[in-house]
């Protein structure tokens, strides 16, 4: 079936003219229409736009000018701006907002002859780890529809796992690509901070946010990462480095690879069944020549606190722009301030308000030094500790999530329960490191993701290593039960 193919396979078939771009696009539009009622992965499709783009790509294919993503339909998290397609961040405050421009990553996809399939669900403004804080709908995990796909890029992860899209883009501020990839049994990659442009990504935590791919194999993730990276003058934090080079993706051997395994990512909070799957995978990799060494990185234990000060502080500033005047919801009010306050109170959900409040508190007079400055100092310590580890080791390996997919509604009552589970993914954002999650096996029929981190700018290495690991663990991935 067309919809079960990888992005690489689709592009190859399109280039070989075995199938037309419009046929490919229509096949995915039809499959989403047929099945997404069960999953709730997409907030909206834009079939006219998709088919028009597909027809335009086909013209280039016919002229022999097809790009790397020839005819590949791509699902986009709904915090990535799409010209002419509503973009809401799964928030009521942006209901009806239609961006007047494309995010840089969207332009890069179109330039490579990819096609925009639709916009996927997320936690409101990407604030959450279960996709339950979306103001619009719940997303279900294709492996068990009573369970969460994780988050915040839960819609993108579920769409890719259920073959509703070959690949998708998400965004990762504290693990929001890698954790849902882990819970849905697919690959999720967060590039080094600055390698992918944030222009047009509606900001949450600007010093942490990074766009990245979700795919069903490392090669597809690498392909999309290479297309969506490179210097962008419209993003001041974009790095001058060239796009991620995947020409040597398959060249790396596992033999002699030095991998650090931090005690702090295997602590009491990591469930025994997740730990068992990761340890089993490590045994296989060890037989292939990987050298594992247990290390201690004490600041990992402080990651959750540091993150839940810095990210909300940045969010409280970024979300200040939603005032009801220039775009989005506008409530009635007695005067300007009243209008702004009523708009924000009506438009933001509880989790977003909580984070705005925490961030405002941490930045307010009297608390700024005790919270925000101190968190930034701990961030510096964490960066130093990781830099030290990378002097002796190529990679850091851990579970991506300490638990497998949890039941919808199970963890959203206690304000801390979900947040405390982010400790394996947060360091990559704090240190700008590239990080990838690939499936390592299953526990109780649910996927278990393995995370690999590397020093900043080692994106190529981390993708090469993940590719080699994927090949060494052939039984680790699978297909969820579905038509």
């Amino acid at each position: 079936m067309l919809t079960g193919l990888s992005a690489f396979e689709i592009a190859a078939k399109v280039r070989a003219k075995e199938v037309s771009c419009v046929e490919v696009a229509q096949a995915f539009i039809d499959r989403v229409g047929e099945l997404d009622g069960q999953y709730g992965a997409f907030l909206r499709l834009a079939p006219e736009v998709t088919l028009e783009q597909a027809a335009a790509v086909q013209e280039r294919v016919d002229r022999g000018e097809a790009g790397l993503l020839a005819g590949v339909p791509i699902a986009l998290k709904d915090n990535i701006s799409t010209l002419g397609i509503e973009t809401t961040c799964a928030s009521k405050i942006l209901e009806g907002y239609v961006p007047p421009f494309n995010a840089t990553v969207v332009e890069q996809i179109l330039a490579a002859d990819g096609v925009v399939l639709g916009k996927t669900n997320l936690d409101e403004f990407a604030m959450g780890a279960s996709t339950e804080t979306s103001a619009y709908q719940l997303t279900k995990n294709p492996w068990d529809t009573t369970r969460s796909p994780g988050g915040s890029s839960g819609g993108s992860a579920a769409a890719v796992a259920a073959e509703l899209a070959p690949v998708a883009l998400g965004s990762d501020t504290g693990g929001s690509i890698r954790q849902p990839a882990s819970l849905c049994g697919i690959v999720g990659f967060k590039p080094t901070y600055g390698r992918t442009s944030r222009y047009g990504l509606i900001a949450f935590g600007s010093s942490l946010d990074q766009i990245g791919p979700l795919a069903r194999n490392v090669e597809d993730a690498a392909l999309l990462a290479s297309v969506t990276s490179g210097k962008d003058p419209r993003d001041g934090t974009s790095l001058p480095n060239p796009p991620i080079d995947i020409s040597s993706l398959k060249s790396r051997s596992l033999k002699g690879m030095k991998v650090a395994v931090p005690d702090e990512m295997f602590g009491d909070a990591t469930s025994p069944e997740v730990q068992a799957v990761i340890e089993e995978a490590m045994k296989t990799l060890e037989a292939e020549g990987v050298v594992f060494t247990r290390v201690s990185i004490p600041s990992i234990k402080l990651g959750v606190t540091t993150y839940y000060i810095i990210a909300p502080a940045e969010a409280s500033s970024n979300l200040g722009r939603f005032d009801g005047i220039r775009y989005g919801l506008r409530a009635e009010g007695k005067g300007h301030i009243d209008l702004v306050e009523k708009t924000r109170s009506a438009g933001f959900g509880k989790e977003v308000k909580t984070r705005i409040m925490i961030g405002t508190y941490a930045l307010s007079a009297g608390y700024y030094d005790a919270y925000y400055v101190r968190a930034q100092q701990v961030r510096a310590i964490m960066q130093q500790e990781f830099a030290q580890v990378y002097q002796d080791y190529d990679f850091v390996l851990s579970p991506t999530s300490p638990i497998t997919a949890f039941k919808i509604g199970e963890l959203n009552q206690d304000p801390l329960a979900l947040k405390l589970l982010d400790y394996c993914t947060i360091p990559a954002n704090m240190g700008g490191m590239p990080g990838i999650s690939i499936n390592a096996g299953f526990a109780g029929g649910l996927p278990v993701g393995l995370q690999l981190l590397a020093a900043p700018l080692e994106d190529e290495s981390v993708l090469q290593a993940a590719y080699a690991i994927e090949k060494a663990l052939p039984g680790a991935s699978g297909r969820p039960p579905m038509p």
Partner: protein
Amino acid sequence: MAITLEEVRHVAKLARLDLDEGEIVYFQSELNALIGHFSDIQKVDVSGIVPTSHAVVMQNVWAEDIAEEGLPRVTALRNAALHRAGLFVVPQIIED
């Protein structure tokens, strides 16, 4: 450092959120749960540590000084709930 109801009201005002009394109580308990957890970084020895705000240090990022077309006015106004004569409409800011 538990946060008081008065502080919740103050923070809501700074954050431009109009919360009713029920919400004030709700957010007090949410914030206290989080702030309670934040105590772990208070014990860290941070002497001599320079705070960092970014992962990969970049300084003085300049853009070429080239004039470019901005968004056309009609496009920039398209998402506004209220606009008139090519301008955003806001409530009166200066009192009579």
